[in-house]
C-alpha cells in the first residue's frame, strides 16, 4: 500500500510515492539520499535521527514518511546556506563538540532548534533541551560549550 506525499525538504519541494509503512528516516536516507541523518536506537530515545518538522524536533525513526505530508523537514544537510556552515556547525568544529560523530547530526539539528528559540541559552536550558540526544563518547561538556558559544558565529 502506497501513498503520494508532498513535502519540503531543506527548502526543496519533494513529491514522491512511498509505501505507507516507510519510516521518515528511511525515506530521507534511501529515497532522497540524505544520509546525514543517522539511526541509533530506533525507539526514539537516542536522538541520532532528530530532524525538524516545521521547525520542531522529531524522531524520524518514530515518524512515518506519510506523517510528513504537507510539512517542512529540515535535516543536517539543510543547515548550511550557500556553502557556508550554520553558526552551530562552526561552533561544534571550533569547540570540539563531537568525537566519533555518529550522534552529531542529531545534536546539531537539535541545537539549531534550540538556538532558533533561545539565541543565547544558559547551561540549564541547554541540558533540558538536549536531554534526549545521547553521546556514547560522553562528550557532553564540549557539546554544551559549542552550543553556548554558537552565537559568536552568528552574523
Amino acid at each position, binding site marked *: 500500500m502506497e501513498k503520494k506525499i508532498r513535502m519540503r525538504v531543506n527548502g526543496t519541494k519533494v513529491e514522491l510515492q512511498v509505501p505507507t509503512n516507510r519510516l521518515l528516516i528511511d525515506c530521507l536516507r534511501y529515497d532522497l539520499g540524505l544520509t546525514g541523518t543517522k539511526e541509533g536506537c530506533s525507539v526514539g530515545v537516542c536522538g541520532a535521527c532528530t530532524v525538524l518538522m516545521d521547525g520542531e524536533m522529531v524522531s524520524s525513526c518514530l515518524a512515518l514518511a506519510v506523517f510528513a505530508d504537507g510539512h517542512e523537514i529540515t535535516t543536517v544537510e539543510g543547515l548550511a546556506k550557500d556553502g557556508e556552515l550554520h553558526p552551530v556547525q562552526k561552533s561544534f568544529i571550533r569547540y570540539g563538540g563531537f568525537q566519533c560523530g555518529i550522534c552529531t547530526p542529531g545534536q546539531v539539528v537539535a541545537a539549531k532548534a534550540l538556538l532558533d528559540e533561545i539565541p543565547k541559552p544558559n547551561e540549564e536550558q541547554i541540558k*533540558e533541551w538536549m536531554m534526549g540526544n545521547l553521546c556514547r563518547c560522553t562528550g557532553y561538556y564540549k557539546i554544551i560549550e559549542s552550543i553556548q558559544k554558537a552565537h559568536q558565529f552568528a552574523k
Partner: protein
Amino acid sequence: MQPFEYRTPKNLKEVQQELKQFGADAKLVAGGTALIIMMKQRLVRPTCLISLSSVRGLAGIAEKNGALRIGGSTTHREVETSSLVRRRLPLLAETYRHVATIRVRNMATVGGGLAHADPNQDPPPTLIALGASVKASSAGGSRMIPVEEFFTDYYETVLKPDEVITEVSVPRLPPNSAGAFLKFLPRTADDYATVSAAAVVTLDRSKKIFSDVRIALGSVGTTPIRAREAEAVLRGQPVKAEALRAAAEKAKQAVDPISDFRGSAAYKREMAGVFVRRALEKALEGFKRVKSAPSRQSKRRGRR
C-alpha cells in the same frame, strides 16, 4: 512493519466512517511515538492507520466555565508551554514537562498518551489528582469519563473501538488548594518513573486542617492508582507531619508494583510511601503559612 492502509480523515464524521469500514483491525494514530514502536515490535499489527492529525478542531487549549479543555490532539509540549495552563494549573504544565524528552513531547498527544494507557506514564496520576475527565466521542454521541475510571489494565481502557478521545477536561482547583507531582528517577532523566506520585491538597480557611486531599500514583500497578485510604487518613485532620506519615503508610498498602529493571516490588512499595509523603509536603509548600511542613524541612536540612 507489515503494510497497512493510511487514512487522513478531515473531521470526526469521516473518522467514524473509517472506523466502521476497518473495524477492530484499524488503529487511530496521532503523534505515533508509542504506536509506531509497538508496530515495529509487531506487538500491534493494524491493517489500517487512521490519522487524527488532519481532523479539525481536535487540538488546542481553552478555558470554559473555569475548566481547562485540552483537545485530544494537543501535544504534550503545547500543554507544558501553554501560558494559560501555566497560569491556571502550573502542576499540569510541570507534569507534562516530565514526560520523556522535548522531541517526544513535540509529537506525543494528550489523547494519544491516555489511549496508550501505559501505567508508567506521568500525566495520569496528576490528572486523577486534579479530578480530570476524558471526553470520548463516537457516532452515537459523546460521554465524559473520569480519568480515574478510564484505565482497566496494562494498555487497556474503557474506550470502545468506535470512540475517539476528543478532549480532556480539567476542573479549576477549589480555593485554598495546591498540588505537586513527583517522579522518582534513579536511572536517567528521560526514563519512565520507578514510582510517581501526585497530590492535590485543599485546606480549610484556617489553613490548618485538610478539608480534601487527592492522591494518585503511577508505575506501581497495572493502572495508575488512586490512594483513597491514604486520602481518608488526612481528611479533616490537622496539617502535621504524623498525618503525612500515616497517609504514606496507607499509600504503600494501595500499590501493587512488579519487580523489574527499575526496582524490586518491595523497593517500589517503600518508595511509593516516601514519594506520597514528599508530594504532600511539596503541595503544602504552596501554603506559606503552614507551620508543620517547614519544621520538618529545617530538621532535614540540619541533618545534612
